[in-house]
């Protein structure tokens, strides 16, 4: 005798979802909201990463020489820096090179600026060996000393900025994890109640099934599938809404801010759909199990 018939379990689960329509909708809505919030945070973190990458060359510090520094002074400064601990190499960018770069980026406003009007100074781009915080801080300290001696006009340490953004990302992650935990607990609670209602509405039927000799798994599988279906529906809907809102609102809103890069949703679409469905289905199954655990133990 065959005892596993997927179609039977699926039909029973669908019937039960229909019978408790309001609670089903509530469960899908809450879990979907939870997934949308998860998606929102994930997109925020992902975009922070993308922008951090754009800073690129995070292991670099730029120092700007004094405007009136002579060729000898700049060469000597470069040599001094090269001898500092944790320095891999030092590349000099003359003020002429820097002006050309600047003109390329701001062709409309400064395209006709001449070398006589050049407001820039020479710079030295330092690449450091180790990203160890202490070593970078020591290098920064040494550079600050050179600055106080009047050899350097300005230090631009991208590491500090990157570190700040990275710290912000970690804060967002922490908030995200707490939000995730709270929302998942709420979702599981709602699903537990939906499945409990389904169990109550089928109490007589279940009683008869037990007397006739149905196994516990045969009785409980439709309820587990019910939880899975709630999770699946919530996952698919959350994905569609997140995609729609991201592409129509977020991308358009940030397109005006040229200094911020917004990631293309298509690049992360497969991860999102799989992630949403997986979280949805697992939450649904966990909710079902919690409501059934008392029953399974009797």
């Amino acid at each position, binding site marked *: 005798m065959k005892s596993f018939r997927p179609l039977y379990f699926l039909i029973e689960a669908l019937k039960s979802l229909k019978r408790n329509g309001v609670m089903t909708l509530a469960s899908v809505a809450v879990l979907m909201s939870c997934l949308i919030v998860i998606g929102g945070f994930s997109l925020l973190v992902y975009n922070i990463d993308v922008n951090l990458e754009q800073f690129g060359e995070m292991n670099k510090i730029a120092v700007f020489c004094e405007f009136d520094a002579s060729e000898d002074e700049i060469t000597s400064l470069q040599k001094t820096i090269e001898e500092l601990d944790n320095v891999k190499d030092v590349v000099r960018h003359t003020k002429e090179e820097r002006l050309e770069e600047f003109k390329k980026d701001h062709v409309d406003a400064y395209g006709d600026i001449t070398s006589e009007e050049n407001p820039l100074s020479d710079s030295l781009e330092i690449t450091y060996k180790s990203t160890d915080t202490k070593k970078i801080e020591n290098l920064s300290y040494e550079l600050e000393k050179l600055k106080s001696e009047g050899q350097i006009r300005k230090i631009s340490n991208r590491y500090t900025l990157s570190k700040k953004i990275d710290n912000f990302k970690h804060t967002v992650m922490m908030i995200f994890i707490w939000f995730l935990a709270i929302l998942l607990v709420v979702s599981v609670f709602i699903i537990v109640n939906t499945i409990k209602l389904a169990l109550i509405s089928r109490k007589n039927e279940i009683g008869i099934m037990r*007397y006739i000799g149905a196994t516990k798994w045969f009785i409980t599988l439709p309820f587990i599938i019910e939880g899975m279906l709630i999770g699946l529906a919530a996952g698919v809907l959350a994905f569609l809404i997140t995609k729609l809102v991201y592409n129509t609102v977020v991308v358009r809103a940030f397109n005006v801010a040229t200094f911020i890069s917004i990631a293309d949703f298509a690049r992360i679409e497969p991860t999102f759909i799989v992630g949403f469905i997986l979280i949805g289905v697992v939450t649904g199954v966990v909710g079902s199990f919690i409501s059934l655990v008392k029953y399974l133990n009797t």
Partner: protein
Amino acid sequence: MIDFKNVVMEYPNGNVALKGINLHIDDGEFVFIVGQSGAGKTTLTKLLLCEEKASNGHIIVGNYDLSRIPNYKIPHYRRKLGMVFQDFRLLPNKTVYENVAFAMQIVGTPARKIRRRVPAILNTVNLSDKHNSFPDEISGGEQQRVALARALANNPDVIVADEPTGNIDPEMSLEIMNLLLKINKLGKTVIVVTHEKELVDYYQQRVVMIKEGVIVEDRVGGMFE
């Protein structure tokens, strides 16, 4: 074969419902279990159904020792029993046919076999013409016949009927009893738990009388005294 050996049943509240029951029922027997309310008949039925476990003693049904049966084996054991209740316990949203077929579906019987067997069982209980009716469209006696058909669906070895005539009129009661006898003639062991004196006396079968948790009489062709 059903064997109760020194079965004691004490509920957690201290109520001792059965006080050392010894009872042997052979395959193919027809037995009335009788007694007043509170005598211990329902507890005996619950023990047979594995709804409760005896506090002491052994209950053997076929190859199963109910005092040692693990939980996962209970559904398989119950498939050897056909249960008929006083309140029919039919599913109101299913037709007569579906109620009987349901019993077979949940133990995983293939659809083809269900289509073949259900009409035959409905014919046995004289309900062929009602297969499309819902429980609330048929009489109490007919509902009990559906319950009987459902109990027979998985071809059990034993039929346990708990007050099967309690909710139906006397004429229908006789019909149900005649059906149970007919089923017994087919080789099934039939246990009827009842407190209806007239029926027991009319059929002259083996009668086991319980009083205050003790078997006070066990006689073939007995009367309800």
